[in-house]
């Protein structure tokens, strides 16, 4: 049996240190001078998470001090983009702090481009600023390392530990070292989960060797969701998966192309196609959500999902491929250089692909397409845990004591882990980590973590569970001559393939044009249960496969939650992200609510509820409203 290594008396454990986790570890030291702060990360925090290869833009910056935007402007933008379904208390809170985060990044050495005329940061769009961000992750990792007592790299966290003396209170986490195979136990008063969103739960468009070519990193294993769902935390908006319109095959970003380089899209005949889909779409979602004339006059954005809808339908109508018109912008050598830098700074593979296929965007308009769906909570979507907001903003239903604390006591989230906060991006995720850290320190200082007890039985039980795939392999491997086909087990890759296929076909993936319905979702749930049984028999031939086995189990938990939520919300709220074929219209009368779920950790049963959707409205609007009523 593997060695057991116990790290005791931790105050704050950060599980997963991408942008959210590094923010948490950094800030925790300020509020907890004498606290023991520990990071457990499955890769190496210098290059881990969605920002491993860098970013060329910070997508969430208000510019309040330059008089550019107020926090509530960003809240309205996120609300419009997500068809109303956001946690506006959490968004407002993130937005009022995010600028201080970004200015600190600049102090730390992150090269942020400046507008030579105004002196403010160079804008790519209303919310985005341009950076030379190749070393974004090493820089924020440095900040986290300076604050943390210990950083445990290469620990795959598999479960949260629960307090044996008080129900529904967290007590740390367990996992294993993906190099040594040692079992690691972290006993901690509070845990901040920053383990990121989920790629690879829907079948990707790429095949074979290219299967790692996904938009969100292949190592985004949905662990934030797997860990929190497994501990019985409530989740929200898990149905709200995201589909991205990106450069075909390479998934290169399009933001800078649209916003800064002023490129645009057209169909195979060189025609603008978006507007012609809008009248029908308007009938589906209502004029309040899609009003192209108003958008034109006021720069009110057209929601991302609705633009996807037009692209998907134009391709289905036989007028694909959709092209990004680069040939005009790229005649300017300066813009051409920016176009390439944009890839090298955050999606190098797109540059490789263009080099390999001789695409020169100066002379040829490259193809765009829509991706497979992803589940995450910091881009143009808001899946994640149901968390408390700040006391000075949140209404009662959104507030239970500590900012960014889930419904499990002492368990906090940041970044993709937190639900209802789309458009946080890198800077907002880091900011959320900071907020969670301050609240977690207060939780401890208030004495809320007194008397935590973790039984040896719990620690032993988890150990057996974690290493079972390796035992299973040893037990049955020699029943067969060789190869990967065995009647007693599947390997993690085989399990992942099955998960992706069933999610794709039953829960609205790319090959079915993002379509699903009640019947399909029920079949999906049944198949997920069967897969769950087989995951008890997943086999790992070495520690690396054990890592893949646990990533798969986390993806499976996240997927089940997605299907349960999709089933619950009987409407099509985000055409272009997914469609409920049996309820093709947006239905504000019944569904202008946030969906909240809880999976019982003992029985695996789901309970679903609706939570009210509070909006941030100006005093004047509210007064006018009162008059009408």
């Amino acid at each position, binding site marked *: 049996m593997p060695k057991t290594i116990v790290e005791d008396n931790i105050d704050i454990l950060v599980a997963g240190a991408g942008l959210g986790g590094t923010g948490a570890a950094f800030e925790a030291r300020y509020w907890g001078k004498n606290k023991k702060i520990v990071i457990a990360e499955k890769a190496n925090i210098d290059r881990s998470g969605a920002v491993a290869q860098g970013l060329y833009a910070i997508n969430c910056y208000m510019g309040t001090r330059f008089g550019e935007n107020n926090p509530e402007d960003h809240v309205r933008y996120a609300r419009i983009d997500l068809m109303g379904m956001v946690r*506006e208390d959490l968004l407002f809170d993130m937005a009022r702090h995010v600028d201080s985060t970004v200015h*600190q990044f600049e102090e730390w050495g992150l090269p942020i481009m400046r507008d030579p005329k105004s002196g403010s940061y160079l804008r790519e769009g209303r919310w985005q600023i341009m950076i030379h961000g190749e070393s974004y992750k090493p820089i924020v990792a440095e900040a986290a390392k300076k604050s943390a007592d210990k950083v445990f790299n290469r620990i795959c966290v598999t479960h949260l530990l629960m307090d044996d003396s008080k129900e529904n209170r967290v007590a740390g986490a367990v996992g294993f070292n993906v190099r040594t195979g040692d079992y690691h136990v972290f006993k901690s008063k509070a845990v901040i989960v920053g383990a990121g969103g989920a790629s690879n739960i829907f079948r990707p468009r790429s095949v074979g060797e290219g299967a790692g070519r996904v938009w969100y990193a292949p190592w985004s294993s949905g662990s934030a969701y797997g860990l929190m769902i497994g501990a019985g935390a409530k989740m929200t908006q898990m149905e709200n998966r995201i589909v991205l319109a990106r450069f075909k095959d390479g998934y290169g970003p399009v933001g800078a192309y649209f916003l800064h380089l002023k490129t645009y899209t057209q169909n195979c005949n060189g025609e603008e196609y978006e507007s012609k889909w809008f009248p029908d779409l308007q009938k589906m979602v209502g004029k309040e959500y899609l009003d192209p004339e108003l958008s034109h006059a006021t720069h009110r954005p057209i929601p991302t999902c609705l633009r996807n809808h037009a692209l998907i339908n134009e391709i289905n109508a036989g007028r694909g491929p959709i092209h990004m018109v680069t040939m005009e912008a790229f005649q300017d050598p300066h813009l051409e250089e920016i176009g390439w830098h944009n890839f090298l700074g955050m999606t190098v593979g797109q540059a490789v692909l263009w080099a390999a296929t001789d695409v020169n965007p100066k002379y040829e308009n490259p193809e765009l397409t829509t991706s497979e769906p992803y589940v995450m909570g910091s881009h143009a979507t808001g899946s994640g845990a149901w968390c408390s907001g700040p006391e000075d903003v949140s209404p009662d239903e959104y507030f239970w004591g500590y900012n960014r604390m889930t419904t499990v006591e002492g368990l906090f989230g940041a970044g993709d882990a937190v639900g209802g906060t789309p458009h946080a991006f890198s800077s907002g995720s880091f900011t959320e980590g900071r907020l969670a850290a301050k609240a977690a320190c207060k939780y401890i200082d208030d004495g809320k973590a007194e008397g935590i007890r973790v039984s040896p039985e719990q620690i032993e039980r988890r150990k057996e569970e974690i290493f079972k795939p390796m035992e299973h392999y040893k037990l049955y491997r020699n029943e067969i001559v060789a190869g990967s086909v065995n009647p007693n087990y599947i390997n993690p890759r085989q399990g992942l393939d099955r998960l992706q296929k069933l999610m794709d076909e039953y829960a609205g993936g790319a090959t079915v044009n993002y379509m699903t319905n009640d019947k399909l979702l029920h079949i999906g749930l049944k198949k997920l249960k069967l897969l769950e049984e087989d995951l008890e028999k997943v086999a790992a031939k070495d520690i690396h496969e054990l890592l893949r086995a646990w990533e798969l189990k986390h993806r499976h938990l996240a997927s089940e939650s997605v299907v349960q939520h999709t089933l619950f919300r009987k409407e099509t709220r985000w055409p272009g992200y997914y469609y409920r074929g049996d309820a093709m219209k947006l239905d504000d009368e019944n569904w202008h609510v946030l969906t909240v779920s809880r999976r019982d950790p003992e029985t695996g049963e789901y309970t679903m509820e609706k939570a009210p959707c509070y909006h941030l409205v100006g005093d004047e609007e509210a007064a006018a409203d009162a008059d009408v009523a």
Partner: protein
Amino acid sequence: MPTFVYMTRCDGCGHCVDICPSDIMHIDPTLRRAYNIEPNMCWECYSCVKACPHNAIDVRGYADFAPLGHSVRVIRDEEKGVIAWRIKSRNGETDMNLLAPITTKPWGTAIPKLSEAPEPGQEMRDSQLLFNEPKYVRMDDGDLHTLESNGLQMKAGVYY
């Protein structure tokens, strides 16, 4: 695009193994050199390529959609604070050198150690402020935005 390692350049130092976020750069036990054990879990993030002291790692576009004969090479220099790229297309018509800064400060010097920052008082703890705030959050260097200061309310119902 998945990475591969040139046999003659790799000395088995393990930097790539240490950094790969996907845990797929491993040392071959017989050859004592690194290789990509799971190309279909590679994000072509170039973290290993940038970390290799011998430029032994390169990238070849995914076999299922990228034709052979291209190259995107990189050298990252922390001391000079720059990263240099060279892109060569398959037909040779694109051959670009691109340079970008990676930091504006000598590496690792400009980040504060918060254990040495002055301890926050009770008032600060009870407020909504984070470290270093309200610096940078307001144009007039005023306090943090609140519902009251911005004339806002949280209201249930349908607002667009």
